[in-house]
């Protein structure tokens, strides 16, 4: 498409991250002529600077830990091993490039028009796109806003992109810092902390509340803290950051000073700010369609994801949880409903979450603490990987599966896994919950032996007193 013209579509999608590109493809599948507008790289943060390249980095860390610490136990002697950190990062960039090309070819396959430029909504069904070649005006019956989110910035943590970083700078940093202070212990913070620690950095995690991964079950937090401390990662909890400043000394090697609310000062070469995300909702003309930017900057919308006249909103910008798979789900429901197809609402109660350091964390549903707070009657089944044959064979005995089973009906209220590649196990529980499988039916489903998945079976069995393996 040439810039400078006026074009007409059924659907215009702003943003090509997991929400946007899926919405665009889905719309084409419904026979709606669709354009997807992107100001940076196709695939958004997830494919370019987030989920996918970070998995490449984390796998490198896992391999390095194996070479350094675990190979000998398996009878493998490694000679002079070394890390070329720039190559570690280069591989992750190559994978990001592949992902971008993947979206491009999907667009081609399904007939989505890709329009490069910065979008601004002019009114219901009208979007101005400023690209390198000039201004294009897009008319569309429906405009889907999928502009995503960016790292949350707060005044006391001035990100300079040199020594005070967000994930966005850290993901392409081509050398491993000798020391890092990680602010915040959500998924991003924990993943980078573990990654840098694996390659030898002295890492300190600072978390404002009383435990790391604060959205997870308390026992999971404790287990991860134990594993991290064993790796030499320092964890400071219950202390908020007062100010982050660059070290006073001049020169290229100036580091950072992190002052905590209780007066403690921490010093390191780098500081990574991972204090959550903030939505990209400002300055895109949402007010021209009657959309309301609500609490936290997220765009108010109804169950169909409608936010204003002829305008819809999905993904991170539509509200938490800021997860790619949430955006996928929202894209499907939103576009199906635009196309007039009846589909069930997005099932936010069954939204899985994962953290990809090793041990990984994967969870769905209620934590034990939340289930208690709600006054539910349930039993807890916990099964350690140390009691799982496959885990012992492969040397991944850390962690456990914990499951909450409703007393009356045997429904799975919540499931929490911490252990090697836990994220790959969780879908069993997510599917079980989605299909409303009860504990009895779960145990009627034979799990292959030997697998780590058996630990899930056993945890459910423990919850209803039927385990023969612990």
């Amino acid at each position, binding site marked *: 498409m040439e810039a400078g013209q006026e074009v007409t579509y059924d659907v215009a999608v702003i943003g090509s991250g997991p929400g946007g590109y899926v919405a665009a493809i889905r719309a084409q599948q419904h026979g709606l002529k669709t354009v997807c507008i992107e100001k940076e790289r196709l695939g958004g943060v997830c494919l370019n600077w987030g989920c996918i390249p970070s998995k490449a980095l984390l796998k490198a860390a896992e391999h390095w830990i194996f070479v350094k610490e675990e190979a000998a136990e398996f009878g493998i002697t490694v000679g002079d091993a070394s890390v070329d950190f720039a190559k570690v990062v280069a591989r992750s960039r190559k994978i990001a490039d592949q992902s971008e090309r993947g979206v491009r070819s999907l667009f081609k396959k399904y007939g989505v028009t890709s329009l490069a430029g910065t979008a601004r909504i002019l*009114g*219901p*069904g009208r979007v101005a796109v400023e690209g390198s070649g000039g201004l294009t005006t897009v*008319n569309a*019956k429906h405009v889907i806003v999928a502009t995503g989110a960016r790292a949350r910035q707060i005044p006391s943590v001035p990100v300079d992109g040199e020594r005070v970083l967000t994930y966005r700078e850290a993901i392409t940093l081509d050398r491993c810092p000798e020391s890092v202070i990680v602010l915040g212990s959500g998924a991003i913070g924990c993943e980078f902390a573990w990654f840098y620690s694996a390659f030898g950095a002295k890492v300190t995690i600072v978390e404002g509340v009383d435990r790391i991964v604060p959205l997870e079950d308390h026992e999971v937090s404790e287990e991860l803290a134990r594993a991290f401390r064993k790796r030499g990662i320092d964890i400071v909890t219950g202390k908020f950051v007062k100010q982050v400043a660059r070290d006073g000394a001049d020169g290229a090697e100036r580091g950072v000073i992190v002052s905590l609310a209780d007066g403690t000062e921490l010093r390191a070469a780098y500081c990574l700010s991972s204090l959550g995300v903030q939505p990209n909702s400002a300055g895109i003309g949402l007010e021209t*369609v*009657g*959309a*309301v930017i609500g609490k936290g900057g997220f765009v*108010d919308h*109804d*169950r*169909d994801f*409608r*936010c*204003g*006249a*002829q305008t819809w909103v999905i993904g991170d910008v539509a509200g938490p949880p800021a997860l790619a798979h949430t955006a996928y789900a929202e894209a499907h429901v939103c576009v199906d409903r635009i196309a007039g197809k009846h589909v*069930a609402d997005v099932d936010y109660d069954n939204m899985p979450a994962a953290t990809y350091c090793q041990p990984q964390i994967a969870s769905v549903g209620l934590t034990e603490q939340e289930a208690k707070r709600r006054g539910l009657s349930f039993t807890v089944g916990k099964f350690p990987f140390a009691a799982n044959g496959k885990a012992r064979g492969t040397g991944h005995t850390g962690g456990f599966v914990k499951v909450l089973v409703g007393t*009356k*009906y*045997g*429904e799975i209220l919540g499931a929490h896994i911490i252990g090697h590649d836990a994220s790959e196990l969780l879908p069993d529980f997510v599917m079980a919950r989605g*299909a*409303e*499988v*009860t504990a*009895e*039916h779960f145990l009627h489903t034979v799990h292959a032996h030997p697998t780590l998945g058996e630990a899930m079976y056993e945890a459910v069995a423990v919850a209803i007193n039927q385990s023969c393996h612990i």
Partner: protein
Amino acid sequence: MATFYEMPAATPTMTVGVLAKWAIKEGASVTPQTIVASVETDKAAADIEIFEKTTFLKLLVGPGAEVPTGFPIAIIGNPGEDITSLLHTYERMKADAAAGAAPAPVAAPAPVAAPAAPVAAPAPEAAPVAAPAPAVAPAPAVAAPAPAAPVADLSMRWMGHLLSDSVMEPRGRYVSARPAPRIVASPLAKAIAAEKGVALSAIKGSGPGGRIVAEDVEKAAAAPAVAAPAGSARRADEAVRVTQMRKTIARRLTEVHQQVPVFYLTVRYDVARLVALKEQAGAHGSKISYNDLFLKAVAKALREVPECNAAWQGDTIVRRGSVDIGVAVALPEGLITPVVRDADRKGVAEIAAEVRALAGRAKEGKLALEEYTGGTITVSNLGMFGIEKFTAILNAPEAAILAVGGVQQEPVVVDGALAVGWRMQVTMTCDHRVIDGALGARFLAALRVYVENPSLLVL
């Protein structure tokens, strides 16, 4: 030993079936689970499977025959067996049936047996030759608890699991009804239904593909018992529990209706230009409704006659500073009036978007308190339901509410001649303590200017 093979019950309520076609020929030897015929009922077409190794010695009826359930359609047994006595019995049964003594092909439905009868009476097994028809006739029109036991029994022998969607005859012949709806429900939904005694068959599933999920069962369990199933002549009364919202609506409407002296003013506006404007907007892809335009007109008119934008407060009348219009939104359990704030300062498109967003949230029950309180006037529109004219009860403490009827074409007199015009009726309910007749009329006249000249709405 040769025996009759009878018309099976493809569904629990089936009393008569039409033999659509035989899938086997006379003299055919069959093995278990062979489909031997297809049968049509009032509801479905079904394949009949046989569950024994046997031979069809004689086909008694041909395609198109209408046969009561339990009446012979064939004679089965070992090859070469003498079936003469059975043929005699069959002829006698037909003759009896024709005389009205017992059901027969093309005769009235089988008599209604007590639900428990087929289970209690193992007659067919004990005496397969002697007049099997009346004895096996399953209870029609009842929820058929009768076949339950044989289902469980044979499912163990044949299928390894419960055939919840099929019906087994006492004789062990299994009918798989092709379009018979299988109840698709999650294990949790089944567990809750069993515990609460809710019949899954009465529930419409909301899950993927219409699957019954836990929430559906919980809702059904919370709802009052439904009326007796079809078949009983009268439907039982139903006590519907009153929600908190309904209670509040009832209390407030009663108070207002009893305490506030009101009068009504009805006007008929010429909306030809409004219709044209909406069409124009629609052609440009703007989803603007008559109501959106009307709200804007009300806002403008209220600015001109601010005395109507008021509330009675006992010792004072409060003239409201802003024009905040409540819009009545119907909900399954009542109604609610989300408020468009400062409607006089907003464009029509903005009002339209806001109304849609508020209505959407209202329907989800997600309105914040401040979003549906503190209006200065309310507009209730039933035009989209085909209502021409109606009166509304005040939304206290507001002094006025406008009841808007539908936009419709009607004969009008223009310059002494009949013509076709567009009209819309509006009835204003006025709190007489605040608004006198002349004042109300003045407001409706101001409103007329905007409704009839909608181009002024954009100024």
